[in-house]
Each structure stands twice: as structure tokens, then as C-alpha cells.
């Protein structure tokens, strides 16, 4: 033991450690500089909402605000001019109902595609999944025409209906794969005892799928919340407008209101989805994982 200790060159180890520490410092400095590209815009956003319009236009964009009070007035102006109350309510309605209905219907379809034996399953799966392979632009004109004809253009019902449809295919893919992996002996036992298929779905399969159901619900909810295209085309009246649409219209038509107010509106519009992300981070990451690979 002592022999090997003698053979170690301590000076060299110290040197090596110092070199690696220096490299760490260098890397840290580089990382700080790189992350400034992300930090500075957020810093700019954070301080701008605390400035009055006059303060904003006179000072350097990165200067600290003189007080915190103006944010209240900015928020009130944004809230009333952009009709953000209605926007938030509409988006919450579209998000919860659209994503909720879609994931429930997708779970039903996934049950049929994974737990029941019949021929040409893949064909039926492809029929449902093919709803999501087209670019969104291909739906727009026919939907607009059809909605106008039926009279559901600019209605809550029309928006929930469309969002429910477009959010079905992806959860079907995820939930089908997941349900294929759940062991089948419980279903068989329940079937022997005369349980109906729907009972098996509701009592046995569904409780085992809460993880992927939550993950896909969150992904679809965020998609609906963030969507601008369909809400611009299918619901462009103030009463049915989604929050992102309200924000875009506000930025376009009220450019006479200062950037500080519009930026405050952007923060209000994003706050709910950021809060949801913070609260349910684990499920979001699960969702990112299933959608990325």
C-alpha cells in the first residue's frame, strides 16, 4: 500500500486539478455570456411592464423602472382595451373542453384498437391518425365555408368542436401504445364475470392510464391555448376570441398604446400556461418525451 503511495506524483495531480478548475471557470463565463441571449429579453420584458408609457419612451430600454406601481395601470389598460377577461375565459373553455373531450374520445378509440381483437386494426388506426398528417392550412378554407353555412362560425360550440377533433389523433397514438403494454389478465377475468366492455374500460384500463392521459391532456391544452391560426379564422369576434387572438389584435390596432402596455398584455396571456407548467412540470416533461421520440 505504502509503496504505491510513494509512486504517486502529488504535484502533477494538483496541477491537473488547477487546470481543470481554470477550465471550469472559462466554461462558466462562456455559459453566462451565451445565456445572456435568453436572459436579456426576459429581463427587458420584466422591467418594461413596471414602466409608464412616458418612462418607457424616454429611457434606455434596459434601465430599471422608477417604481413598481405603474404595472397596475398597465394591467388595467390592457385588460379593458384588449378585452382580456373574455379572452382568458374563452381560451380556458376551449382548452379544458377541447382537450378533455379529445383525450376522452381518444382513450375510447385506443381501447378499441388495443384491447379488443379484430382484423385490420392498423387500417382503422391509420384512418384516425391520418387526421394529423396534413398541414393546418389545408383545413382552413373548407372549415370556414362549412362553419358559415351551418351557422357555427364565431361560436363557442364551433371552436370546441374543431379543437376536439384536431386533438384526437396524437393522443390515440400515445394511448394505444400505452394500453398495448398493460397486461390483459384483468380484462379476461372481468369478462368471464360478465362485465361489459365499457365497465372494463372505465374500471380497469382507464385507472391504469392516468399518467399518459394527463401528459397528453396537458400537451393538447397548451396547443389550444397557444393557437392563433384557427381562432383568427373561425372566431374573430370579440365575444368568442381566444386570448392569443385578443393579444394579437391588441398589438396590431392599439400600437398607439405604449409597448409597456402591450407587453403587460403578453405577460397576462402567458401567465396561466406558465403557472400550469410550473405546477405540473413532471407531466409536461413526460409529454415532451412521448412527443419527441
Amino acid at each position, binding site marked *: 500500500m505504502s509503496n504505491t503511495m510513494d509512486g504517486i506524483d502529488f504535484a502533477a495531480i494538483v496541477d491537473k486539478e488547477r487546470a481543470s478548475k481554470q477550465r471550469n471557470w472559462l*466554461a*462558466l463565463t*462562456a*455559459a453566462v455570456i*451565451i445565456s445572456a441571449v*435568453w*436572459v*436579456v429579453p*426576459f429581463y*427587458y420584458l420584466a422591467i418594461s411592464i413596471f414602466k409608464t408609457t412616458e418612462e418607457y419612451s424616454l429611457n434606455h*430600454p*434596459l434601465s430599471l423602472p422608477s417604481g413598481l406601481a405603474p404595472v397596475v395601470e398597465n394591467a388595467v389598460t390592457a385588460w379593458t382595451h384588449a378585452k382580456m377577461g373574455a379572452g382568458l375565459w374563452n381560451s380556458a373553455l376551449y382548452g379544458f373542453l377541447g382537450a378533455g373531450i379529445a383525450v376522452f*374520445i*381518444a382513450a*375510447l*378509440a385506443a*381501447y*378499441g*384498437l388495443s384491447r*379488443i*381483437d*379484430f382484423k385490420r386494426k392498423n387500417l*382503422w388506426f391509420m*384512418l*384516425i391518425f391520418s387526421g*394529423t*398528417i*396534413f*398541414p*393546418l*392550412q*389545408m383545413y*382552413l*378554407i*373548407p*372549415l370556414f365555408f362549412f362553419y358559415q353555412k351551418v351557422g357555427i362560425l364565431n361560436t363557442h360550440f364551433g371552436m370546441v*368542436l374543431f379543437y376536439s*377533433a384536431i386533438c*384526437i*389523433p396524437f393522443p*390515440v397514438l400515445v394511448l394505444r401504445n400505452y394500453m398495448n403494454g398493460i397486461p390483459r389478465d384483468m380484462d379476461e377475468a372481468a369478462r368471464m364475470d360478465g362485465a361489459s*366492455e365499457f365497465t372494463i374500460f372505465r374500471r380497469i384500463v382507464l385507472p391504469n392510464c392516468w399518467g399518459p392521459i394527463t401528459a397528453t391532456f396537458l400537451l393538447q391544452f397548451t396547443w389550444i391555448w*397557444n393557437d*392563433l*391560426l384557427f381562432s*383568427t379564422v373561425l372566431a374573430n369576434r370579440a365575444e368568442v376570441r381566444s386570448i*392569443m387572438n385578443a*393579444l*394579437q389584435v391588441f*398589438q396590431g390596432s392599439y400600437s398607439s398604446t405604449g*409597448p409597456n402596455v*402591450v*407587453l403587460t*398584455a403578453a405577460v397576462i396571456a*402567458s401567465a396561466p400556461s*406558465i403557472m400550469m*407548467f410550473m405546477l405540473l412540470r413532471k407531466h409536461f416533461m413526460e409529454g*415532451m418525451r412521448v412527443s*419527441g*421520440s
Partner: protein
Amino acid sequence: MTSNGQNPSDQEILDRIGWSQIRANERKLQRKNFWVAFAFMLPAILLVSSLLLAPVAFNVYLSFTKWAKFKGIDQFAGIANYVRLGTNPFFADALYNTSIWVVASIVFPLAIGLALAVFLRGVPFENLFKNIIFIPRILAPTAVGVLWFYVYAPDGVVNRFLGFVTGGDVDIGWLYQENTVTPAIIATFVWQSVGLVMVLILLGLSAIPRDPIEAARIDGASSGQVFRHIVLPLLLPTLLVVTILSVLAGFTVFDLLWVMGASYPGQRTLSLAVFMYFEAFQKGSWAFGSAIAVIIGIVVFSVTWIQAVLQHRVDRMMR
């Protein structure tokens, strides 16, 4: 399995166990199963086919008609709408900008995401930096567009920074000029989406086995060699998935262009998606708009097809 004297016992056995009965039952069960499964799939099939598939089919049909806003679909136009695309001056510009988007959204997210992933591994406070870069991904593109609209303003942060570096006054109208508007919006797109690319690449990196890397190190390979000959090939499937995700997101982007391009006079030329919106919903040329949508669809399918071919090659290589 006919029994013509050679093996009479087979038929006898089949008869004894009632084979035909079993098969009939089996078939009946399959049929019953199908209808049960169909009942479960029915809501999905109804919604998807009526609100997604039927519109796509109708869109393709429309692109061959002369339909406009206040006129019925009275006349069949053949390929006239597509011919019109060729002579429309905005279409050429929109197509050009869209192809820039395709190339940029292949190159930049991948190159920057990979560089960030490799560089940030092992840096002190690694997770903090990763989270900072990932945060914009949570925000809606509309909100990000609004934020960067003001960051790019003539007296905004970007110009102030350039002025600080050069020591003079810089007032470039990033979002007002033809030669800067597309690169500026692409930069915002990359700013927002590179976080996810980085996280996915990091996931791929952590799945690479350590053994071949250690073995190469012991044999005296430099870290550059290890990266090029071991890490990169093993990372290829991840890189492929990431590229396809960002290219599809990149050239169908609408929100950023709609918000950030609002002050640009030639907004309709920013991409095919924006051009289509202008033609269909502001000018009311629905048939012409459908033709543009079909072109976008063709581009999407070619990209998906190339991806499938590449995926197949990579899968074969990995085996």
C-alpha cells in the same frame, strides 16, 4: 386439408371436435368483436373524418374550381389556379422565403442545439443554464412574437446593443426591411425552439453506452475523434427526429410571422402560409387559396417522405 383416403383420421378428428362449428364461432366472435371495437372508435372516426379528412378532400377539389367569396362553385377550372401561381409575383417571393425557412430550420436548431448540449454538459450550474434556454418553449409563439417585435424596434434592445458595440447610433428597422425581416424572425424562431432541441439531444446523449467511449479513450483517441466516430453515429437517430420536428414546425410557422411581420409592407410574401391567409381570407379568392394550401401539403409530404427514407437507412445502419 382434404382427406382423400390418405389420411382419413384427420377428417374424423375434425368432425369429432366439431371444427366447422368452432370456426364459425370464431368468425362470429371476430365479427362481434369488430362491432364492439367499432363502437369504441366511432366518436373518433366521426369527428376526425368530418372535421379533418373531409375538409382536406374538399380543399383539393376546390383548388380545381373558380370559386370566390360571393360566387358559388359554378365552374370547373382545371389547373388554372396552379398556372396562376406561376405568374403571381407574390407567390415566387413567398416560395423563396419558405425555402429559406426550410433550410434555416434544418441547420440552425440542430447546429446550435447540438453545440449547446455538448458544451453545457459538465459546466457548473448546468441545470440552471439548461432551464434558462428551455423557458421560451413554454411561452406561446404569439407572446414571444410580441416580445421580440419590441426587442427589434428601431430604438429597441438589439439596436442599442449594436450601437454600444460599434460606438455609434444604430437604427436598423429589422422588421421593416426586405433583407432583414426573414432572418430576424428566423432568429426568434430559433431562440424559442432551440431549448427543446437541446433537451432532446441531451436525452439522446445520455442513452449512449459508456463502454465504447472508454475503450476508445484507453486506445488513445482524442475527444474530437471520440465525438466524430462514436458519439455522432450513435446520436444519428435522435438528430434525425429532431430535424424533422423542427423543419415541420419551421416552415408551417404562422403566429410569429403574423405578429412580427404586421408592420412589414410585404407581409404576404413572408411565407406560403401567410400568403395563403391573405389570398383566401382578405381577398376572398378561395379557390386560389386552396391551391396554395395544396402546394404547402405537397411540401409537407415530400419532407415526411424524405424523413421516412432516411429513417429506414439509419435503422438499417444501426443493425
